């Protein structure tokens, strides 16, 4: 075998060894898709409010929705049932339990994001955006974070300052 052929062989062996490691090897079979076509799945809400849809809701509008669609698992007034309590926890969570929206959740936008994508448990992603705003407002008001008459929408929700927001330590900052 000539030196040149040996070098080519070595190069191809190296390419095999690193198969999949670079886009150069890729068959590039991803199909371009437009943001409009992704929109039905693009439900992530960011802490700054990015992704929040139009709509509005108040605690008073949320109360009957909670009663009808949430209390079977989360209990009357969110005191807890087969699923976790969403209010009325201890002032501070501990290893004995008791993480609540009031004493632990750092961002109010997380409530909207999670309720919309995952709740109600047996009919996830079935609520209208106004209903999600209303439930978010109800939960924040139950936890005494907003007033009973405050309106939640894409502008007001990201501005809600959660009490425990500044109590977190990033475990391994070098990994981010």
């Amino acid at each position, binding site marked *: 075998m000539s030196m040149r052929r040996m070098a080519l062989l070595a190069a191809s062996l190296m390419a095999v060894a690193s198969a999949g490691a670079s886009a150069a090897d890729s068959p590039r079979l*991803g199909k371009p898709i437009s943001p409009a076509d992704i929109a039905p799945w693009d439900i992530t809400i960011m802490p700054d409010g990015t992704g929040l849809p139009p709509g509005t809701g108040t605690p008073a509008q949320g109360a009957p929705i909670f009663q009808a669609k949430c209390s079977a698992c989360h209990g009357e007034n969110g005191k807890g049932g087969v699923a976790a309590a969403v209010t009325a926890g201890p002032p501070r969570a501990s*290893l004995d339990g008791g993480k609540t929206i009031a004493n632990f959740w750092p961002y109010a936008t997380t409530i909207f994001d999670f309720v919309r994508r995952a709740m109600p*448990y047996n009919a996830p992603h079935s609520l209208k955006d106004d209903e999600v705003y209303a439930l978010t407002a109800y939960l924040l008001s139950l936890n005494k974070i907003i007033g009973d008459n405050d309106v939640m929408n894409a502008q007001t929700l990201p501005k809600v300052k959660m009490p425990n927001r500044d109590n977190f330590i990033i475990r391994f900052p070098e990994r981010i």
Partner: protein
Amino acid sequence: MSDKRAQTPSSEPELVAGNGLLHRRALLGQGIVYAGAVGTGLAASLTGAAAEPLREGPWSMHVGTIIPPYQTPSRYEAHVVRTQDNPDNEPRNSRARTPHHLLKGIITPNGLHFTICHGGVPDIDPAQHRLVIHGMVKQPLEFTVEALERYPMVSRIGFVECGGNSAPLFSNEPIQANVQALHGLASCSEWTGVLLSTLLDEAGVDPKAKWMIAEGADSPRLSRSVPVAKGLDDAMIALYQNGERIQPGQGYPMRLWLPGYEGNMNVKYVRRIKLTAEPAMSYYESRTYSQILPNGKAYRFYFLQEVKSFITTPSPGLVLKEPGYYEISGIAYSGTGRIKKVLVSADGGQSWGEAALQDPVLPKAFTRFRMPWRWSGGPAILQSRAWDESGTVQPTRAQFVALRGQTTKPPSVLDFPSQHFNSITSWAVDAKGGVKHVYA
């Protein structure tokens, strides 16, 4: 045989630590001799009676059954199953734990891999499943299973561990439960799929993107924020588990696999990866997988499953029938890399001997360790302690609890007081050969 020791049955096994721990050399080729040399070991038989004349079994006297299309374990192994904590599929999370005490080796059989679902196991048609990569990329892309099948694939053996595995050890008192209940939310497989970096390169990631938000196609659309650095390092879109398509409980038809990172981040049924500048602060990262500390603060973005080991035999529920020779066996792993060393103690940590590490010793994978032991019949406290190649050592429980806290009263064994527990586990052997969970 050229080894003189192997031809000298009278030679005594070499003790390396207190309470009967033998040098690991006893396992490496000369083990049979040492086992016999102990005299009171298994060679003396469990009953003390001599063997009886051999007989034919009925299974040898007629033709067996049809070979099934998909083989399942012998009916005599029907007890080797996962434990379900939500067998009626009530509206809450459900988990199934791996029976480590009944398994050997480093690969978890697919049907015994631990599973956690937050909305049941979805029944996904692979022909209709899509993976979308979008957000801060040059070109948003959609991939089908069929398309991904044509990509260069890689295979890698590695563990997946729930961030809440071993959480019962946060209890202020040792909870009496077996290794399946205490440590059963970790398993290890060979995963095969497409490196995520290949797909990210194809979409063209904006250098300003620092996070990717992965989302599943399950009913809660489980969503986690993952650093792009991990996505470009060793993350995989895994399609196969131990050679066959990933099981429904593991994310069929595809999952995000992040070697060494908290199980919940390894998003199953992954359908969407959105590149962003900031994390989404999803429910699971901002609430569930943030760990409360004794001072009232909480850790966020723990990610790493740190170095851990535990003994699987002997362990609670298994009984030592008589004094003599036993092999202590367990698993060790680290999300940082390879296991470097495992020490074993039979006297509650007063003295330690180095265990044999069974090849292969792979990064971010289960490593099986073994330690020969001659049980005197008296009380013993068995412990294992692992070091990984970064030099990180598994903490004692006292060291761990000083930093991370514990409960004030024992929780249910199914509760998760916190996560990322990785200290030493202690098993106490009593004079009757029974094994209990203790703190030592």
